[in-house]
């Protein structure tokens, strides 16, 4: 399997502060990969670097196309959807408008309409509220909306930043079930950053553990999950 996303020697900076110190990893097409690590390890920064939302150097290639230096919106147009931390909901707009915004770069009107219907199948709660202002949704509903909005792009690669953040455990289970389904059925490659390592490792094929901006361990999800040292020192359970 050839890699869909190649990351080599990635360094990222916030002003003078360096947050990533030479990250390297690959995502193979159709895989579901998780990035694990403690607070401040650089997980969010890694995702932001892929979408060029933080100043970074090194190489990131998506299906051969270099991403570094490319504007965020044009990276998105390559088929990379990013569900940011805090969900990025357009709170003053309706649920349906949020979904339409997800597909704003697409020109196939009919496809967009049928995809909105598909999202309502995936997330029935959104269908009940499609005329409602998105800001009035609960946290879990907003997270569903964020994922649905990202899917409206018909992405090849989806980046998720802490989708479980602030959600009740039951809702998190649901959400991950849907993510697994999207990964398997729609063949969307997924890179997910998670605090809830246990859950993420259950679903993912592959995992990387990062610490202070470097990858310190990688392997299949089950290897990482079963590695006693990793569990104790990095995952904390």
């Amino acid at each position, binding site marked *: 399997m050839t890699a869909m996303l190649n990351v080599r020697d990635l360094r990222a900076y*916030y002003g003078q*502060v360096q*947050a990533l110190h030479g990250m390297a990893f690959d995502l193979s097409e159709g895989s579901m990969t998780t990035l694990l690590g403690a*607070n*401040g*390890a*650089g*997980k*969010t*920064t890694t995702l932001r670097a892929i979408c060029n939302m933080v100043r970074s150097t090194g190489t990131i290639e998506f299906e051969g196309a270099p991403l570094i230096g490319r504007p965020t919106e044009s990276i998105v147009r390559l088929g990379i959807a990013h569900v940011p*931390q*805090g969900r990025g909901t357009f709170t003053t707009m309706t649920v349906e408008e949020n979904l339409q915004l997800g597909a704003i770069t697409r020109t196939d009107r009919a496809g967009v309409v049928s995809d909105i219907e598909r999202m309502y199948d995936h997330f029935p709660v959104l269908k009940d509220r499609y005329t409602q202002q998105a800001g009035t949704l609960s946290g879990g509903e907003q997270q569903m909306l964020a994922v649905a909005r990202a899917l409206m792009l018909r992405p090849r690669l989806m980046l998720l930043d*802490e989708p479980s*953040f602030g959600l009740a455990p039951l809702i998190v289970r649901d959400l991950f079930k849907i993510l697994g389904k999207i990964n398997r059925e729609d063949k969307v490659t997924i890179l997910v950053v998670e*605090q809830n390592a246990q859950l993420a490792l259950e679903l993912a094929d592959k995992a990387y553990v990062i610490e202070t901006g470097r990858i310190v361990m990688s392997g299949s999800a089950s290897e990482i999950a079963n590695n006693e040292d990793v569990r104790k020192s990095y995952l904390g359970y």
Partner: protein
Amino acid sequence: MSAIEETVTEAAAVEAVPKKAMTLGYGTSLAVLVLLIAVPLLVKNFIIFQLTMLLIYAVAVLALNILTGGSGQFSLGQSAFYAVGAYTSAILMEHGGINYALTLPVAGVICFGFGFLFGQPALRLSGVYLALATFALATAMPQLLKLGAFEYWTGGVQGLVVTKPDAPFGLPMSQDMWLYYFTLAISLAIYIFSVNLLRSRSGRAFMAIRDNEIAASAMGIDVALYKTLAFGVSAGITGVAGGLGAIAVQFVAPDSYTIALAISLFLGMVVGGVGWLPGSIVGSAFIIFVPNIAEGISKGLSGAVFGVLLFLVIFLVPHGARQGAIVVQHLIGKLRGN
């Protein structure tokens, strides 16, 4: 969650300036002071008058700087406070026969009160809304001064003529030169007061509010009190500048204090560097001399020349004179290092 990340907040109205960077070192201050004392001895009376105006506007810009650079609040309405100060001095001198020097503290106190009161509604506004409210105040002021009801005191549209004071104790200097040194002394006092104010507890409270209002209130700072206080202090100092201005120009009239003056003071602050108090004098020089220069370059296009110069400042030295000062400081540091 990474430790370093951006949070969703309203963009800061003003870039934060570290407290230390708000003033000059002792050596530089002394050099500037010597220069300010020496120059009038060498130039003609008209230039001395211009230098007096330079100091007066510098004080007014400084006042705005305390408000904006210190507490992060906008004002496009400083001309209103300036006008109140000017009229207070003029009315006290011409109707009350009070000594010019004594009118200044009164002007300061009245404007402090006015500013403090205006600060109450302004409390609930921020950024662009506050700019708009103060803009409204500045536009309304000349109209209010023209009101028939106050005409006996204000002289209506005609305004009031103010007597120029002589040098006291039979000092052998011209009226202009005396007024210059008088203004210099007051400006200096205000500058020292302002520097100390910003270094004090209140100054720290101002800056905390500027940098993050919600966090400041969470730290137990009485945000409402300090914001109105900043307005009051700023207005009070502007009022003193207005009083001095009335004495120097020997005339007050409603149309001297239009929104154009407020905009000038605002530009003076931007050019001088927001939050950098010594920059006030550079900003003041900009608003006094650049329109003349613009007029010199092209009579019909002076407004355009002025605008272009302003754009150049914004683009090339967005931090105003402060940026220039930092560059000079680095150069001196390098020279010393060699």
